[in-house]
C-alpha cells in the first residue's frame, strides 16, 4: 500500500514538474539573469540606466573574452589556469612596444602573437609532454607572471598613445569599443563551435577523446590549437585592460582565471567536457558582472561582495545539477 502510494506520488510529481523542468533546464541561466536584473532595478534606481548598463558591459568584456577561450578549453575537458598571467605578459609586451613609438598594429600584433604562442606552448606541453592541463597551465601561470615582472621590472609601463587608449575607453557610435570587441569574439566563437569542423572536433574530444581518435580526429593537434585560442583571447583581453588602465600593470589579471572559470560553469558548460556553449558563458560572465555592479550600488562592502559572489556561483551550479 505504502509503496503504491509513493509510486503514484512520484509519477504525479514528475508529470507536473516536467514542462517547468524542461524550461528551467534550457533557459534557467537566462531566467536567473533576468530575475537578477529585475531585482536590482527595483532595489537601486541607478542600476537600470543606460550609462550604468553600458558601464557593466564594458567591465564584463574582459572577463567574458577570457571566459570565451576558457569555454573552448573546458569543452575539451581541459582547464587553463594561465590566462590571467598570459594577459599580463601580453599587455606588458604591447605597452613596451607602443611606448617605443612603433605603430599601433605592431604593438597589438606582438601582444596577440605572444598570447597565442604561450597558449600553444601550454597545448604542446599537455599533448606531447602528457602533463595534466591543471599542472601545465599552473606552471605557465607562474612563469608568465614571473616573466612579466622581469620585463616590467615590477613597475607599470605608462605613456600609451591615445589611439590605443581609445580601444578601452572609447565608443563606436554609442557602443563602447570593448563591447564591440566582445561581440565580435562571441559571434566568431559561436560560429566556430556550431558551424565548423574545429567546433565539431572540440565537442568530440571533450565527449570521448578515445572515440574521437578512433574516428580519425588528430586529438593532439586540435587540443593544442584550443589552448592557443585561449592564449590569443587572453591577449585580446589584455588590449582592453591595458587601454582602460592607460598602463600595463605587472600584477594585472591576477586571479582572473577563477572568474573566467566561474563564468563558464555558470553558463552551463560541464567541467567534464563535451557539453556547453559560448552563449551560456556570455550570460555567466554578465551574471558575475551584474552582481558586482549591483552590490556596489547597494553599498555592500567589498568583503561581503566576495561572499555573495561565491554563494551565487555555488547556488547556480547546485541548481543546475538538480535539474539535470
Amino acid at each position: 500500500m505504502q509503496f503504491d502510494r509513493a509510486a503514484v506520488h512520484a509519477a504525479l510529481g514528475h508529470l507536473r514538474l516536467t514542462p517547468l523542468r524542461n524550461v528551467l533546464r534550457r533557459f534557467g541561466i537566462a531566467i536567473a539573469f533576468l530575475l537578477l536584473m529585475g531585482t536590482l532595478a527595483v532595489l537601486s534606481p541607478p542600476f537600470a540606466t543606460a550609462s550604468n548598463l553600458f558601464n557593466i558591459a564594458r567591465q564584463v568584456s574582459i572577463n567574458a573574452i577570457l571566459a570565451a577561450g576558457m569555454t573552448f578549453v573546458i569543452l575539451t575537458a581541459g582547464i587553463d589556469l594561465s590566462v590571467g598571467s598570459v594577459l599580463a605578459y601580453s599587455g606588458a609586451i604591447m605597452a613596451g612596444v607602443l611606448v617605443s613609438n612603433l605603430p599601433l598594429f605592431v604593438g597589438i600584433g606582438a601582444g596577440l602573437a605572444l598570447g597565442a604562442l604561450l597558449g600553444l606552448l601550454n597545448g604542446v606541453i599537455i599533448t606531447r609532454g602528457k602533463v595534466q592541463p591543471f599542472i601545465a597551465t599552473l606552471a605557465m601561470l607562474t612563469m608568465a607572471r614571473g616573466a612579466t615582472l622581469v620585463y616590467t621590472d615590477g613597475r607599470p609601463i605608462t605613456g600609451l598613445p591615445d589611439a590605443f587608449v581609445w580601444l578601452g575607453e572609447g565608443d563606436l557610435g554609442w557602443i563602447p569599443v570593448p563591447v564591440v570587441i566582445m561581440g565580435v569574439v562571441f559571434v566568431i566563437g559561436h560560429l566556430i563551435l556550431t558551424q565548423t569542423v574545429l567546433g565539431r572536433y572540440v565537442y568530440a574530444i571533450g565527449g570521448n577523446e578515445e572515440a574521437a581518435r578512433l574516428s580519425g580526429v588528430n586529438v593532439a593537434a586540435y587540443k593544442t590549437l584550443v589552448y592557443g585560442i585561449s592564449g590569443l583571447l587572453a591577449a585580446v583581453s589584455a588590449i582592453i585592460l591595458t587601454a582602460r588602465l592607460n598602463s600595463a600593470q605587472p600584477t594585472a589579471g591576477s586571479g582572473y582565471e577563477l572568474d573566467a572559470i566561474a563564468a563558464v560553469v555558470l553558463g552551463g558548460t560541464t567541467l567534464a567536457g563535451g557539453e556547453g556553449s559560448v552563449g551560456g558563458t556570455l550570460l555567466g560572465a554578465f551574471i558575475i558582472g551584474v552582481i558586482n555592479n549591483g552590490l556596489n550600488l547597494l553599498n555592500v562592502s567589498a568583503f561581503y561582495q566576495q561572499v555573495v559572489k561565491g554563494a551565487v556561483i555555488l547556488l547556480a551550479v547546485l541548481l543546475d545539477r538538480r535539474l539535470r
Partner: protein
Amino acid sequence: MTTQTASSDAPLLQMQGIDKSFPGVQALHDVALQVRGGEVHALVGENGAGKSTLMRILGGVHQRDRGEILWHGRPLEIRSPLEARAHGISIIHQELNQVPGLSVAENIFLGREPRRALGWVDWTQMRVRATRLLADLGLSIDPRRRLGTLTVAEQQLVEIAKALSSEAELVIMDEPTAALTSEETQRLFGFIRDLRARGVAIIYITHRLEEVFSIADRVTVLRDGQYVSTSAVGDINLDELIRLMVGRRLTEKFPKETFAPGKPVLEVRGLTRAGVFEDVSFVVHHGEILGIAGLIGSGKTEVAHAVFGADPIDRGEIYLDGRQVAIPSPAAAIALGIGLVTEDRKRLGLILQMSVRDNITLPVIRTLAPAAFIRRRREQALVAQAIRDLHMAVTSPEQLARNLSGGTQQKAVVAKWLQTHARVLLLAEPTRGIDVGAKVEMYRLMVDLARRGVGIVMISSEMPEILGMSDRILVMHDGRITAEFSRERATQEAILASASGRTPSAV
C-alpha cells in the same frame, strides 16, 4: 576424488534449481552445482553459458529468482558480497579489484584493517599478518611494496593471499590465468594444490580447457544458461568435454551469401606487437568475410586495433590492394579506406552526448566543409540516407547517441564507416549485447557490404556467427594464428580446440 576435510557428509556447497533472468534474457534456467570441500571444481561453458551469472549469485552480487543454495547442508541467503565473504566465500575476479597506489599489505586488508583502540590502524599487526600470509604462499614479496610495482602474476597471487586472509572455505577463480605466462600459471597451480590440501574448495572458471585436465578434480558444464553435466576429470577427455559444451544447438538462420572473392584487398605479413601478438599474417579479398575466432586475451581484437593504426606495432607489413602502406594513426587508416567497428561501442565507438548526426559524419566531416563551414544540407542528406539504409530507429538525427538502443547504436557505428566508403571493414564483436533482430540486420548489412566488394574482417567470440557468416576462419591463441579453416571444413569442435591451444593434427 579428493575429499579430505568435509566437515560432514553433506557437500560444502549445493546450488539447485537456480533461475535468473535479466530484462529480456533468461540467463540461468534450473542450474545446479555441487562442490565438495577440498576439491578443485572446474566450471566451463561458452560465452553466455551463464558461468559468470552463477558465480555472481554465489558472490552476493546478483540475487537468484528461484532455487536454493545449501552451505554445509543448510540453506543460505547471500544478499551482498560482504555477506558472502563473512560466510567464507571469496571471489578472485577476472579484472583485479585492487588499488595499485597502496601497499601490498593495505590491499590484502582493504576494508577490514586490523584496528587498535580509537580506530587507529594497527600497522605493525597488518604487516606481520601480511608477511605470514605471503610466506604461507611461498612468496617473498615485501608487504610494504606498492602493489603497482608487482607483475600481473604477483598481483594475482596477492589477490589469492587476500582471499586466504578472510579464511575462505570456498575460493572462486574467474579465468585467473588469462594474463599469466605458462610459467606463472604453473606456479599458480602449485598454490591451488596447496589450498586444496588444506581442505579449501576451489571453483575454477576457465576457457582454456587443457587447464581443466591439469588442475581440476571434477568439471561442471553449462550451456545456454542450463546445467549440462558434472563429471570426474578422470572419466572424460577433451573431445568429450568440447562436445558437451557445444551440444546440439538450434541452428540459427544466417542470411549468408557467398560471392566469388576478388583480388586481395588487405594483406598483413608478420604483424607483431611484443607481448600481445606475434607474427600474424593473413589476406582478405574483396567481397570476402574473414572470421577471426579466439578466446579473450588471444590478441584478436588487438590485431584489429593495430591494423587500424590505433595501437603501435613492432614489426610487420600491411598491403592494401597490393601496395604497401604505413598506418601510423587511425586518421591514416581512414584516409586509406579502412574502418573499425570497435568492440565497445559506448566507450570507443560513439560519443554518447553527441547527436546521431554528429557521430555518423565525424570521420568525414572535413570533406563536408570545403570552406571551413560545414555544409549543413549535404550533411543532413548523408545522415538521412544512412538512417534510411540501415533502418535505424531514431526519433530524429538530432537524437543523442546515449538515448539509442544497443542495436541502433551499433548501426550508428557502422554508418560512420559507410560514409568513408571503406574498402576494408574491421568488425570487433559486431553483435555483442544487441537483440536477435538487430543481429540479423547486422549480418544482412555485412552481406550487402561484401556484395559491394568490401573486404570484411569479423573478430568474434560468438561461435555461431563465426561459423554462420565467415567465408574463411582464422583461429588465434596466445597472440598467434593457430589454425585456418575454410567455411566448409570448419566445425565448432575444431575451432574450440585450436582456440584453447590444442592444434589439431590434421587441418
